[in-house]
């Protein structure tokens, strides 16, 4: 029974990860993009996938990765997430510098750029808060509420960013992934009752 659940959960997660990647790999737009632009796009998709994995790890929902083990992997994936966002932005910068400069200065004609840039700063802030948590001597309550708030902004803005874009992601697999990202985040915040911590 436990083994059945393990196989079910992991194969389900694998399918959820593989589907948007495979669908994007079949996008006709790829024919008219060079490897750097393609890599930039896929780094964005990978970042969205990692955004789904993060709450699953912290909530201990993945068989074989409960409690502390899940938290340790959560830190590694957090680093990978920030790296994916960095590759996403750097690849786009190389492809068309003026478009990325406009986006970073919130002067872009495309609204999704603003959402993306806000999400980028929020995820960086969430990661920085995690790295300096001990040195800042934060109370558990402050740390949890701070990290959760920054992550909430990251999730919300990333989802709006992705949905508004007409790019290599296939529409249905994009909507499914975005929905799961939001649901996973909401579930872990509710399960851990983040708002109820007194310490």
């Amino acid at each position: 029974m436990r083994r059945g659940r393990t196989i079910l959960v992991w194969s389900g997660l694998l399918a959820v990860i593989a589907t948007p990647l495979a669908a994007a790999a079949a996008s006709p737009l790829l024919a008219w993009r060079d490897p750097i632009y393609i890599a930039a796009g896929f780094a964005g998709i990978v970042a969205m996938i990692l955004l789904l994995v993060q709450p699953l790890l912290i909530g201990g929902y993945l068989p074989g990765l409960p409690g502390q083990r899940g938290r340790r992997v959560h830190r590694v994936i957090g680093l990978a997430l920030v790296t994916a966002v960095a590759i996403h932005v750097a690849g786009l910068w190389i492809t068309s510098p003026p478009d990325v400069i406009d986006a970073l200065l919130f002067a872009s004609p495309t609204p999704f750029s603003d959402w993306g840039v806000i999400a980028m700063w929020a995820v960086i802030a969430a990661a920085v808060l995690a790295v300096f948590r001990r040195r800042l001597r934060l109370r558990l309550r402050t740390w949890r509420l701070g990290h959760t708030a920054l992550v909430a902004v990251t999730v919300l803005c990333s989802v709006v960013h992705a949905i508004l874009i007409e790019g290599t992601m296939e529409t249905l697999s994009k909507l499914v992934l975005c929905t799961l990202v939001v649901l996973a985040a909401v579930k872990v915040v509710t399960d851990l009752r983040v708002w109820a911590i007194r310490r």
Partner: protein
Amino acid sequence: MSIGGLHMPTDLFTRRTLIAAGGAVAATWVSGRLVPARAQGLAATPSMRGGSNNYIPNAPIVDRIGGGGFWMTGTVRRAGDGVPLAGQRIQIWAHTTEGYERDPHSHGATLTDANGEFRLEMPQIVPAFGQPHGHLAYDSDEFETVFLRPVMSSSQDTSLRADFVLKPA
């Protein structure tokens, strides 16, 4: 979809058209309040955000950009009286099936005819940086420089239109 024989396009009100309509209403209201005395005059087209991105000065006048198959069209008129302007140079560029915006071979210029209309064939525009869009520039000395960045309502479109109203420099 078909309601009582009427074909309803599913993208009748896209976010883009709503924003455009809202912007147009707002612009009309604002300009109407700012210059009541010149209410009859045709206002100059302002440059669009990001319009000048990947602009290359002095793109050559060409019969066609690359292999063609897609049409960029529009008009050039004078601010105030709206007189069509002939012989005006408009530069056009985009991310197409044949190249990036920054590639020199993606750029070309054309001249307006006696009716102030221009029409240049170019390769199919494909979505890049999240939207299927083109770039146009009026960059000669006689009038103030204007950069436009029109967005296609669908990436399946095979033409795109942009109109210029120019103000003397």
